[in-house]
């Protein structure tokens, strides 16, 4: 049952679960975003490992090689990395503004402040 050819998926699942755990178990907003970044990296690894071909080489045409690794996942992940950093920056900008508005970045203190605002 434990095939050696599947270990790349298990590494991906392990990283994904680590990121997921950080997101749901910590109340600090900055740590949540760090967990989301770990999750993102595991998804990139999933796609890239699915695209690798045994005995293939980098997908740049050259007369010396005939077998190339699949270029399609590379294209998707290339743009996904830059988009990921832009959206992480947007999330961190929101965290900075939340800190200025509420004075804290812990989510239960923010929820308590909102309830007190709703009561008054």
């Amino acid at each position, binding site marked *: 049952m434990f095939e050696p050819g599947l270990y790349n998926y298990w590494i991906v699942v392990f990283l994904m679960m680590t990121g997921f755990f950080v997101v749901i178990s910590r109340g600090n907003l900055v740590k949540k975003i760090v967990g989301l970044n770990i999750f993102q990296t595991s998804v990139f690894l999933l796609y890239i490992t699915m695209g690798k071909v045994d005995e293939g080489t*980098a997908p*740049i045409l050259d007369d010396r090689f005939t077998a190339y690794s699949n270029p399609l996942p590379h294209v998707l992940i*290339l*743009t996904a*990395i*830059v988009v990921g950093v*832009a959206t992480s*920056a947007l999330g*961190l*900008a929101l965290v*900075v503004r939340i800190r200025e508005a509420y004075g804290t970045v812990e989510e239960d203190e923010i929820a308590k402040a909102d309830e007190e605002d709703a009561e008054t």
Partner: protein
Amino acid sequence: MKRHLVLRVVAKLLIPMILLFGLYVQFHGDYGPGGGFQAGVIFAAGIILYGLIFGLDMVQRVVPTGVVRLLIAGGVLLYAGVGVISMLNGSTYLDYDVLADDPVHGQHLGILLIEFGVGMTVASVMIGIFYGFAGRGQR
């Protein structure tokens, strides 16, 4: 300012090379690894390094905020504009075959132009993010 002398001297040596390397990666994306996304990030990293060492005021004199805003929009407009030009030449949107006399040359020209647009937008977004975070810390 005599503080951080080693940092300033090393940065003055390195930053032009980083910017040059960014431009090289941008225009040689056809023949080796590279292209617009990588080049934009490398170029922005060079400018951010300048901003980290010499201060926000100096880097905002080199790349003013208005220029950053213009470039962010300009890159996307360039990309979309290449598609519109393809339509004006009689083909479908973003079909590069009609941009020059020979389809292969048209593809080359189209790829060069849109990668440049991508590089402009990515670099200015990264610099804009740096300006936002660095500017906030001084209030």
